[in-house]
Each structure stands twice: as structure tokens, then as C-alpha cells.
């Protein structure tokens, strides 16, 4: 049986960065990808804006992916494509991973560590409460994107978009450019879910209306979508009776949220954070299962690919360190208030780790203006940053150096948000 130091599941931006870093640091590395091509979802994200942090350039998704694929190939790191991981078992200090592909059938490999970089999935029409029949013409934004950008088919001519997530906004522009009419984007919340700059350059630029506090309550049509019923919703996002409005259309594009993919994590009994829906990790990106790491959108849903890449890089680096040293852990919880934060990643700090650099990612629960975010250790302020505005769609990143801190198990580590003058 082939044995590796690091096996990465997923060859999207997180997995490629993880594999590249692991191999650079001397780990025997293998990347597993279920599709026939590496690159993950970036392959169909043909819009630009990728890589501003990573490459200081405005690239399209395929360009960003190809740069990383090239770097991985130049280092001769194997990527096993069209290969599916069906089972993972822990056997003492290593993992036995069952794989299947058309070349070798079902086979097993061994690895000291495993990096889960298998991304996230879109919520579908089955996961949100919409009445009516099941006509064709209802797509998730990602599926519509695949139809248009990869296959070259226009999935609808006159559509509504439900949800104001970034992919939905980008598809509003894309459908418009391809000659379809986008009647409007309907968002149940009182504020948009996508990045502000996407609201501007995808909706405002093309005069596509954004309707807040409204949702689709019924889809009409038998063979094909013929229309939708739109309702206004109250502050609890419950439809208000008597506000029904019929909108005729032949397509419904759903952009109603992404959820980290965690089938393998769950099969190993790895603790999942109820806020991120991804595994809980320490600041080395290791889950609570020794030797299993998580990064990218499998860990928490990011809004920028640059951060996905960054987390993959850290996970790759730390996986090699773990594979070679098998270190003891001593975890301290990162405490936060759920009234202020939607989530904070990592959820733990490993105080025995020789890695003294902590990168924290967080999202605020609500739109907050003029706030100060502080990190406190043992009731002493060790980090302060002021923000003019914090919005839930815009993830924030904090870098913290632990070198000067005398960490111990019984002291409190917490992140707080409070009013403050910008």
C-alpha cells in the first residue's frame, strides 16, 4: 500500500495550495480530485476579481486556478483526478483511505495526515421552503453558471433570482450579458448577503432591481416555470399574508447560501462548529481529530479565494510539521459573543504549538459602524483594531503573534467587539 505524509482531498484553490505547501516543506504528498480537472469551482467562475491579494492582479477564476495548477505540476506533486474517496478509517497514527477510479477500481492508500479541502455545496430548492410543483427552470446559481460558462447553454430567458449571495449577483450580470432578462433579485433579509461591490457592479450597472424583505413563496408551472409568487416578509422572515404578487418568468435562480461539505469529517466523528457548519480547528488548522486538517470553504465559507488559498497553505505547512513530529496538543478555546460575531475561526489555540502566529477570520453578526475589535488574554488586551464598518458578507482577518504571551490552560482567550470611535 502506498504511504504518504499528507493526502489532500480536493484540488480546488484550498487543496492545491495545501498540497503545494506540504510538498515544498518536504512532505510526501498526494492530491485527490473527484472531477477530471483540478481547479474546483474556479473553472466555471469566469468573472474577474480573483487574486488581488495573492497575485496583486485582477484575474478570472480559470486563470487563478491555472496558475496554481501549474505550480503544483512544476513541483511534480501528483494529482489523482476522477478519483473519489469513499471511506476513511483511522488506524492508530495513520489513516487508511479507500479510493475508487476507473483506472485502478477500488484501492487503498495510507497517510499520516489528511487535509479536508473539499469545499462547500449550494443550498438547493429542496432545502428552502418553497411551495408548488417541480417544474424545470429552477436552478442553483452554480448550476446556471455551469450551464452558461462551461456548456454554453442559456438556462432561461426571463428569470428571477432568489437570494442576494455573491454567485446569484454575478449570475444576474452574466444572464443579462447573454441576453436574458433578470426581473429582479429578491432577498428575504433586510440587508444584502453579497459583497457591496458585487451589488454595485452586477446589479446597479445593469439596472437590475434588488428587493429586500421579500421572498418567493410559490413556484407556478407544470413542465416549465411559468411564474412565481412573491411575498413581503416580516422581521422574522415570515411571509406577510395579503402581499402576494405574481411575477411571470421562465426561470428561478437560487442563491440561498453555501454549506461546508463535511461527509468525511462527520464519518470520522469530527466536531462540527454549529456557526460555520465546518469542523472546529485550532490555529494550525487541525480539527479535533489528530492528523486531520481542514481549510478553504470546507472549513468555513469564504468570500475571497485569496483567503481560501491562504488557509490551504497554512494547513499544508502544519500537516507536514505534524506528520514529522506527532506533537502533543493543549487546546484553549477562543471565546466570542454570538451577539456580536457570526463566527470566529479558528475555534481553538494550541498553546503547546511551536507555531506562534495566529490568523483569525471572523464575520460580524450584523452591520456595525464604528466598532473596535479586541483580543484579550488573561483579561489583558493583546490586540486592537478599529473598523469604520463591519458587514456580515465581508469576512475580516486578524493576525496575532503569541510569542510574548505566556499561554496556560486556565487563562481566558477571547475576542470582543465594542463601540468605539473610528
Amino acid at each position, binding site marked *: 500500500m502506498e504511504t504518504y505524509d499528507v493526502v489532500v482531498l480536493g484540488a480546488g484553490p484550498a487543496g492545491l495550495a495545501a498540497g503545494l505547501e506540504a510538498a515544498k516543506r518536504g512532505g510526501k504528498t498526494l492530491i485527490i480530485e473527484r472531477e477530471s480537472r483540478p481547479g474546483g469551482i474556479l473553472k466555471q467562475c469566469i468573472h474577474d476579481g480573483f487574486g488581488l491579494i495573492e497575485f496583486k492582479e485582477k484575474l478570472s477564476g480559470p*486563470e487563478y486556478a491555472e496558475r496554481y495548477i501549474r505550480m503544483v505540476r512544476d513541483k511534480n506533486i501528483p494529482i489523482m483526478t476522477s478519483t473519489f474517496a469513499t471511506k476513511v478509517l483511522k488506524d492508530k497514527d495513520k489513516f487508511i483511505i479507500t479510493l475508487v477510479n476507473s483506472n485502478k477500481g477500488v484501492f487503498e492508500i495510507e497517510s499520516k495526515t489528511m487535509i479536508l479541502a473539499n469545499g462547500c455545496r449550494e443550498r438547493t430548492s429542496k432545502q428552502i421552503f418553497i411551495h408548488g410543483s417541480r417544474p424545470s427552470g429552477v436552478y442553483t446559481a452554480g448550476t446556471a453558471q455551469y450551464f452558461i460558462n462551461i456548456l454554453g447553454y442559456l438556462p432561461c430567458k426571463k428569470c428571477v433570482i432568489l437570494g442576494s449571495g455573491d454567485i446569484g449577483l454575478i449570475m444576474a450580470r452574466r444572464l443579462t450579458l447573454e441576453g436574458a432578462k433578470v426581473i429582479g433579485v429578491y432577498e428575504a433579509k433586510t440587508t444584502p448577503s453579497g459583497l*457591496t461591490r458585487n451589488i454595485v457592479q452586477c446589479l446597479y450597472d445593469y439596472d437590475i432591481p434588488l428587493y429586500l424583505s421579500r421572498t418567493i413563496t410559490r413556484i407556478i408551472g407544470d413542465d416549465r416555470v411559468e411564474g412565481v409568487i412573491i411575498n413581503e416578509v416580516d422581521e422574522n422572515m415570515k411571509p406577510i399574508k395579503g402581499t402576494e404578487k405574481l411575477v411571470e418568468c421562465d426561470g428561478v435562480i437560487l442563491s440561498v447560501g453555501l454549506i461546508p461539505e463535511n461527509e468525511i469529517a462527520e464519518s470520522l466523528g469530527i466536531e462540527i462548529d454549529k456557526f460555520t457548519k465546518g469542523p472546529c480547528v485550532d490555529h494550525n488548522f487541525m480539527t479535533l481529530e489528530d492528523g486531520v486538517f481542514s481549510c478553504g470553504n470546507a472549513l468555513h465559507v469564504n468570500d475571497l479565494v485569496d483567503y481560501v488559498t491562504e488557509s490551504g497553505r497554512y494547513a499544508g505547512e502544519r500537516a507536514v510539521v505534524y506528520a514529522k513530529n506527532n506533537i502533543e496538543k493543549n487546546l484553549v478555546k477562543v471565546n466570542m459573543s454570538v451577539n456580536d460575531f457570526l463566527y470566529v475561526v479558528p475555534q481553538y489555540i494550541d498553546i503547546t504549538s511551536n507555531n506562534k502566529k495566529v490568523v483569525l477570520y471572523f464575520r460580524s453578526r450584523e452591520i456595525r459602524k464604528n466598532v473596535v475589535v479586541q483580543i484579550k488574554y488573561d483579561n489583558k488586551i493583546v490586540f486592537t483594531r478599529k473598523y469604520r464598518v463591519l458587514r456580515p458578507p465581508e469576512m475580516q482577518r486578524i493576525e496575532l503573534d503569541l510569542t510574548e504571551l505566556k499561554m496556560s490552560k486556565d487563562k481566558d482567550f477571547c475576542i470582543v467587539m465594542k463601540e468605539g470611535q473610528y
Partner: protein
Amino acid sequence: MKELICIVCPNGCLLKVEKLNENWSIKGNLCSKGIDFAISEMTEAKRSVCSTVKTVFPEVPRLPVRTDGEIPKKFIFPLMKLINKVEIKAPIHSGDIILKNVFDTGVNVIATSDLFELLKEGIYD
């Protein structure tokens, strides 16, 4: 005074733009790119355009493309018409020019994926 949201980078600064005599007054920008964006937005707004072009290869029916710079907004839909007429008949590489100097803007439309590589591996499944 006009309020604009800068779309140059993920910061998305809220800019307050005003023309005082012959000079622009711009507030709210975290970097100098915001100034250029605001002036361009107030005089002639420009955008980059991303799309796909048809190919003759059934295993890779579309190839992604983008403008290598920004073009005035009024050219977006005319450019889409040009892009939709293109048909790629030979394998090309990422970065290759598909349409040169569109509408005399100095901007080219370039391929953003490597058809050569795509054809080797077939369509993603």
C-alpha cells in the same frame, strides 16, 4: 455631492465625490485607487467584461475570455455582440488575444483558460 461605492478592491469604500470649481474632492477612500476610480466614474465609467466564446471542439464547447483592461460602459453590449460571433477553431493558450483593440480603446479580449490543456483532459465532469 455624489456617493459611490468603490469596486476596485474588496474594501468597497464609500466615496463622497464633489466637483469644486475644476477640481474633484474625494473623501472616504482608503487608498489612491479610490481617487482614480471616482474621477473615472464621474467622467466616463469603465468596466472590464468577462464572457465565453464558442469553440469547434465538442469536448470543450466554450472558452472563457475577458478584456485585459476596462472599456467605457457604453461598449459593453456592442462588445458582447463581437464576442458572440467568435468561433475558436484551433487550440490556444491562456492569455492569447482573441479580439484586438476593441472599439479603438486599446483593450484586447484575451482567453482566460488554456484550451490546449482543456482538450487534453476533456470537459470537467
